[in-house]
């Protein structure tokens, strides 16, 4: 587990959070700018010192202000990726990578140079100087440099925010590989929902220096009581498992967790059993009283209405649905709701117009 309790008061900004998040996988600290995400991260790294603070990463205590413990940042086994790659300009890429590596005892090294440079695809850049790299390359070097310290916790402060969308999509697959191949817990600060949806397993929602919610990404994104459910981007994450592939139509069947239900998406062939993460936007789900097969809509699931909530715009309502344990969100018009007579417990058919495959 990662336990973090921080309290600090700056002029015009108060941070007061109490986080318990899993000690493995990727946890996103998500929120608007000024919500305190970066300050949290800097306090965990010890770059900032919260007056009242307790930071424990699995079995290591890094700060316990009640007992006067504050481990200086350079003795915390962490990796930090800054928003700008912040490579040392006086050192080559290789020397940048070795900077942290050579300060780690040989016996504690779990990531070696070959592995890190292969993982981030930077093997061909080692002789270069940071000035001669693109923004995306610099950030990949920055991530590799942090990994080479074999950290027990990787802190990433909006590593993609300074990049344009092309560079972003260039780096995202590398981050996904990191997630899949290394067993290092990651705290990932971001204000971009698409990044969070792709990478995170656990989501902490921060607002005005407070944690509004914390939980597994699927559940948390589907909560109606959070601002996440508002906006055009609202939707749920489905972590499905490939159950079949229809080569003739190039459709992949994804089984929803713990159900016999599946959804079909257009995709290149994948081995049966492989996990795939998808996003279904609330705006892409419509509801029907019957299973109307005479439709071009591919995916129809039997669902139960859980609850209803006013949307950010008066013409719409948000409906939370349950599909055999998998939460879904639908954004429909108030008019349609009245036509269908929607009530909690009602059995309906959800028609899913589009599924975005994330990974």
């Amino acid at each position: 587990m990662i336990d973090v309790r921080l309290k600090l008061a700056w002029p015009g900004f108060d941070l007061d959070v109490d986080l318990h998040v899993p000690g493995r996988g990727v946890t996103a600290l998500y929120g608007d700018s000024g919500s305190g995400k970066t300050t949290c991260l800097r306090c965990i790294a010890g770059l900032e010192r919260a007056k009242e603070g307790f930071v424990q990463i699995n079995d290591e205590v890094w700060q316990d202000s009640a007992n006067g413990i504050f481990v200086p940042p350079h003795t915390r086994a962490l990796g930090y990726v800054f928003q700008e790659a912040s490579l040392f300009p006086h050192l080559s890429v290789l020397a940048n990578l070795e900077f942290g590596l050579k300060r780690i005892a040989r016996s504690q090294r779990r990531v070696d140079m070959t592995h890190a440079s292969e993982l981030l695809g930077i093997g061909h850049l080692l002789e270069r100087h940071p000035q001669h790299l693109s923004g995306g390359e610099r950030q990949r070097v920055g991530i590799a440099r942090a990994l080479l310290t074999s950290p027990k916790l990787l802190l990433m402060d909006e590593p993609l925010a300074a990049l344009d969308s092309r560079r972003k999509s260039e780096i995202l697959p590398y981050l996904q590989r990191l997630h899949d191949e290394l067993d290092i817990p990651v705290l990932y600060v971001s204000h971009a929902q698409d990044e969070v949806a792709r990478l995170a397993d656990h989501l902490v929602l921060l607002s005005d220096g407070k944690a509004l919610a914390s939980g597994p990404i699927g559940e948390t994104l589907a909560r109606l009581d959070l601002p996440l459910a508002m906006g055009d981007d609202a939707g749920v994450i489905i972590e499905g498992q490939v159950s079949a592939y229809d080569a003739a139509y190039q459709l992949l069947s994804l089984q929803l967790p713990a159900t016999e239900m599946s959804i079909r998406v257009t995709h290149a062939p994948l081995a049966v059993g492989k996990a795939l993460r998808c996003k279904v936007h609330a705006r892409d789900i419509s509801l029907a009283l019957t299973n109307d097969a005479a439709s071009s809509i591919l995916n129809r699931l039997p669902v139960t209405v859980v609850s209803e909530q006013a949307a950010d715009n008066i013409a719409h309502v948000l409906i939370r649905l349950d599909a055999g344990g998998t939460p879904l969100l639908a954004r429909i018009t108030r008019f349609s709701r009245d036509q269908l007579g929607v009530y909690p417990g009602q059995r309906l058919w959800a028609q899913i117009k589009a599924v975005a495959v994330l990974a």
Partner: protein
Amino acid sequence: MSLTSADFAAIWLTLKLASLTTAILLVIGTPIALWLSRTSSWLRGPVGAIVALPLVLPPTVIGFYLLLALGPHGFLGQFTQWLGLGTLTFSFTGLVIGSVIYSLPFVVQPLQNAFSAIGTRPLEVAATLRANPWDTFFSVILPLARPGFITAAILGFAHTVGEFGVVLMIGGNIPDKTRVVSVQIYDHVEALEYAQAHWLSGAMLVFSFLVLLALYSSRKTRAGWS
């Protein structure tokens, strides 16, 4: 007619004084500049002002106070006598002390600017890569501030070579001990030896120009922090 052996002795003494002063200033100026560039203490203003004082004070004022302090009744003079060193006025050591104070801002200010330009980010990066503060100083701050160190050393050296007032006040005019080039030129002029004065003055002029030429030509735009 060219330089006499007395002139050469004055040149040698000047170079010795300037080199020693520069070396001392780099050692004591670095921590002062580092502190000034990082601290948020209220002392930052007063200390910065004290360091900058020699920029505006007439050298005679600095020389006068040093003369009093280092003299037999001054607090530094009492201390050196207690140590059995006698008084330092009219000695080479006294001259070094005076020069260090006189040239202090010329070394501290370029260093302070260099340290401020580096910012805090590289230091934070170094810390997250397991470098302790000393390690960070030698492996990050020092190399990144190198242009600042070069500027500081050149300015400190050149400014010490050019000093006159302080030397005259606390060093006097003792051959091989305190008679530096600027004083030697003054002597030549007093004695109406204009040809000698010409030779030495010309040498100083050329030297100073070359030093500044080297400084301003080498000031390339520094590689940006990436």
